[in-house]
Each structure stands twice: as structure tokens, then as C-alpha cells.
């Protein structure tokens, strides 16, 4: 029988399962069916119960590792060490995790400790005697297909690669202990500070309404926020808006911000500079509002409205509200 496929269940600050892990689990389950392999989830947290039972809605078997140190210490190194130890013990073949900050931290630690290779930022994973991973590289300019040269490896998966689907039958949660000291130095979490930001990572949003310099200021972002709310989406921004201090850096999309692939990207007052484009051009649908018909975004958007966003955005809001009734 083919080696097991493992899913790292990421845990959010409030102890629930990160959305990305439901998508990763869905992919892993599909791979396991194709491979005729077992698929197992692993949650490592101070109190893994809630996230583990959530993950068990997607996978037949979930290992729940209680790790008290994770309560008030940075999670990446701790979770990575425990996962590496479990991998050593149970000898699975593959590990899948999210491609966001938490998943990357864990993937890096496990890779180094286990010597496993990593295929990163998967937008699709198929099976052919091992994971065959599709990635979108150079900001969406190329699509590559890769595989492992070895019998094991780690895949980091981008949000929105697939729609999460629970299993027909929920699986079981097995509380598991991992022996041994945590040898890597611990990093204390002194404080957790909530700022006005998105409730969920922007990479996970199905709809993003983004504002750029054209929005003009923090007040201008109100109409961006209202549109996002009316569409059930999240608010994104360009670096120009972030540098101006209108919106937190966590909402920045682009080369040195987040890479997103939503169903709809609605860009208001954004020129579409290459460093922004590489973060959003694989969106399924791009609609832009810009008063400059020669702005780069007018070349790659599906629809561009040439006009003043302070007129068009309120009109859009009204039209959406009318439609919603």
C-alpha cells in the first residue's frame, strides 16, 4: 500500500481550524483515493480538540497532539518539531500544509529536520505515483508542473486551489502524545494585539474589493469597505495605499504582499503596476474602475469602467443593494 498522506491542521488564534486546512484536507482526501493510500490529519496545539474535530469532518483519522508550550510560545518551531517527530515515528510519505505564513513556518522546520523536499504554492495537486503539483510562478506568467524525485515530500497549498468539501462520513480523533524534549529554543508570545484588519487571511477571500492611491485617503476606503461588505468579500489594497497608512500591510496584495486568487477582484483607483499585478492576475474575474483609460489594469482586466470611482463605486453599491432587494 502507498505511503500515508498527512495533512497539517493549522490552528487559528482562537483555537479553531484555519480555513486553508479544510481545503488542504479536501485535496489530500482526493489524492489518497487516487493513490489507494491512507490519509491522516495532525493537529498540534495547546488545546487541539476543537480544530481536530473540525478536521475530522474532512478526514477519516486525525491525530490530536496536546502541546502546552504552544499556548504562549510561537507555534511554528514547536508544531514543526512535533510533526517531524511523528513523521519519524509513523513514516508517512507526504505532508500537505497551507502556503500562508503559518504553513510555511511549519513546512520549513519539517523540511530541515526531516530532509524532505518542498513543492510550494500549489494551485492544484494531482496523483501519478506521487503528488504532481501545479504552481503558478512569476506572478502568474507561467504554470509549472512538478513532482518529487524522492518517495516523500511536503506540499504547501495556496488558498482557493479547491472548494473544501467535508467527507461523507466524519472521521475519528485520536489524542496522541509525542515524547521527547522540544530542543529548538522557544519564543515567547508576550502579547496578541488585534488591529482593524480582516477576520480571515485575505488570501482566502472569494471576493476582494481593493483600493489604491486613487481612493485618496482613509475616508475613501469607506466605500471600498461598503462594497466589500455588500459583496460578502474582503478589503485589499496596493502598496501605495499601505505606505500612505490608509490600511494595514496585512491587506497588501502584490509582490511583497499577498498573492491572491479570488473569484472576483474589484480594483478601485489601482493602476495595475507589475508588482501589484503579480499578486492578483490569476483572479478568475477582474473588474477595474479607473478614470485613466491608459492605465495598465485596463489592459488585463475583464471589465474596466472608465470613470471616477467616487461616482461609480456608490452607484455600484446602490445597484447591488437594489438587486439584493
Amino acid at each position, binding site marked *: 500500500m502507498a505511503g500515508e498522506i498527512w495533512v497539517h491542521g493549522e490552528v487559528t488564534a482562537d483555537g479553531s481550524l484555519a480555513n486553508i486546512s479544510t481545503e488542504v484536507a479536501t485535496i489530500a482526501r482526493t489524492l489518497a483515493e487516487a493513490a489507494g493510500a491512507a490519509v491522516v490529519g495532525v493537529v498540534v496545539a495547546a488545546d487541539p480538540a476543537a480544530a481536530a474535530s473540525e478536521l475530522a469532518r474532512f478526514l477519516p483519522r486525525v491525530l490530536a497532539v496536546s502541546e502546552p508550550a504552544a499556548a504562549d510560545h510561537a507555534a511554528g518551531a514547536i508544531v514543526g518539531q512535533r510533526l517531524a517527530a511523528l513523521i519519524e515515528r509513523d513514516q508517512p510519505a507526504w505532508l500537505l500544509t497551507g502556503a500562508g505564513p503559518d504553513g510555511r513556518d511549519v513546512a520549513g522546520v519539517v523540511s530541515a529536520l526531516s530532509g524532505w523536499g518542498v513543492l510550494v504554492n500549489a494551485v492544484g495537486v494531482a496523483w501519478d505515483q506521487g503528488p504532481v503539483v501545479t504552481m503558478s510562478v512569476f506572478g502568474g506568467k507561467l504554470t509549472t508542473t512538478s513532482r518529487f524525485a524522492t518517495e516523500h515530500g511536503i506540499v504547501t497549498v495556496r488558498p482557493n486551489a479547491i472548494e473544501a468539501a467535508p467527507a461523507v462520513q466524519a472521521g475519528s480523533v485520536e489524542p496522541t502524545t509525542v515524547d521527547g524534549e522540544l530542543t529548538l*529554543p522557544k519564543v515567547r508570545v508576550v502579547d496578541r494585539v488585534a488591529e482593524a484588519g480582516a477576520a480571515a487571511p485575505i488570501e482566502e477571500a472569494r471576493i476582494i474589493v481593493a483600493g489604491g492611491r486613487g481612493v485618496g485617503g482613509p475616508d475613501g476606503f469607506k466605500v471600498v469597505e461598503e462594497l466589500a461588505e455588500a459583496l460578502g468579500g474582503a478589503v485589499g489594497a496596493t502598496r501605495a495605499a499601505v505606505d500612505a497608512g490608509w490600511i494595514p500591510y496585512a491587506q497588501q496584495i502584490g509582490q511583497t504582499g499577498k498573492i491572491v486568487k479570488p473569484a472576483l477582484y474589484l480594483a478601485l483607483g489601482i493602476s495595475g503596476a507589475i508588482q501589484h499585478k503579480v499578486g492578483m492576475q490569476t483572479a478568475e474575474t477582474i473588474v477595474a474602475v479607473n478614470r485613466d483609460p491608459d492605465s495598465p489594469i485596463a489592459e488585463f482586466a475583464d471589465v474596466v469602467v472608465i470613470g471616477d470611482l467616487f461616482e461609480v463605486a456608490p452607484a455600484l453599491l446602490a445597484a447591488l443593494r437594489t438587486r439584493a432587494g
Partner: protein
Amino acid sequence: MRIVVLVKPVPDTASGGERLRPDDWRLDRAAVPAVVNANDEYALEAALKLTEAHGGEVHLVSMAGPAAPETMRKALAMGAASGTLVTDDALAGSDVVSTTRVLAAAVRDLEYDLLLAGADTSDGGAGVVPAGVAALLGLPYLSYAAKIEPNPDAGTVRVNRITPTGYEVLEGPMPALIVATQALGEPRYPSLKGIMAARSKSLETKALADVAAGDAPVGGAAATTTVLDATAPPPRAATRVIREPADEAARQVVAFLAERRII
């Protein structure tokens, strides 16, 4: 305070011309001019500010091809004092595992209080190397920093780590590895004086045999991953341009979104 920064030369994204070599799907480094990876410039800028505030100097470490010194001189011109480049034909085609091992080996013998790296690279975009280097060196790992505050007297460092909803304040002992982001601040432009000074700064080139990478296999021959194929995604459909008064434009956009079943 002594700070080591991991910097990688990458194809200039502003060129828009990055490509893979069609024979082996490796990055075609000859196709586009190289620049210092943007996230590494943020790391370097943060390091320079810290040494300005606390004294000390910045040392660069890179693993890259033989043309890398040219790019590394740009980072020296920004203000780094010196650098180490690990370059070796055997390292061409290295994967994440190799890169992590070689960088860890190159840093292992250095003396430093902080080791800084970028959040990810614009060519590979893995974002996993720094965590791996920290694990191999047994360093405290503080990632996605929006703020770095060392306390040299206490021998600790605090970092605001960006989260989706705000940030967490992390504190660990030094030496530590910190992952830098753009939120740390805009990188400086090299001054003319800096550019002149960079020419005579020490940039040591090492072959693979010169770094103690241990017995673990590294380099292109040990790569754990292979690219099978690369294709350009289908081009986007032609843009539909709407030039109508706001209400009519909004009506057409909403109809379009409904047609695509987005709303």
C-alpha cells in the same frame, strides 16, 4: 550588534521577462538582469537601522551563481560591511533542502546577534528557507516582522509578528533568526559614496567544499524535486471597456457579475 542578512539575487520582476530554460526548466538567469530580492532589501534596511541605533555592522551571506558579486555589491553599497558568497557549479539546481543546508553551514561559523532573512523570494516564492535555517542552527525563530526591538543588555529581541487580525509580540533570546517584511520600512537608495565604498569592501567567495555542509547531500544532483513542464496560462479574454455614466456603468457591471454567477 553584529547582524547577518541572507540575500538572494533574483531576476528583476520589473522587467516582466522572467522565464525558465526550456531544456531543464531551471530559471533562466541570463534572460533578465538580477537585483537583490525585494524582501531581502527590507531585511537589509532593518539591519542597517539597527546597527545605526546600536552600533555594529552588517554581513551578507548568499548562495548564488558566479555573477552574484555584481548584485551583492548593490547590497554592500546600501551599507553592509562585508559579505560571503557560496558559489559552486555543483550547487546549480539546488532545491529548498540544499539551499537551507548550505546557508546554515555558511552562517554556522559566523558570530552574530541577529540573522535576518526575507519573507520569500520573488523567483522561487517558497518562504520556507528561513524557518529551515533556524531549525538547523538551533536558533529562536521570529517570523513576519513588522517591528524589531533588540534589548542588548538583556540579550533578547522583540518582534511584532504580523497576523491576519493584527500582530503578536514575540520575544526570544539572541542570537535569533528574524524574517523581515516590507512593513519594516522602505529600503534606502545607495549613495554615490556608498557605491564607491562598496568596491573595496570584502566579499569572500567560497566553494561548496569551503563550507561545512556535513554529510547531508546538497546541490543539483541531490535535488528532491523536479519540474516536468511549464506552460503559459491561456491569455485572458479581451477587456470590455465601459464608458457610461456611473449608474449605467454600475448596472452593466452588476449584470456582468450575475452572468458570471459571482453574485
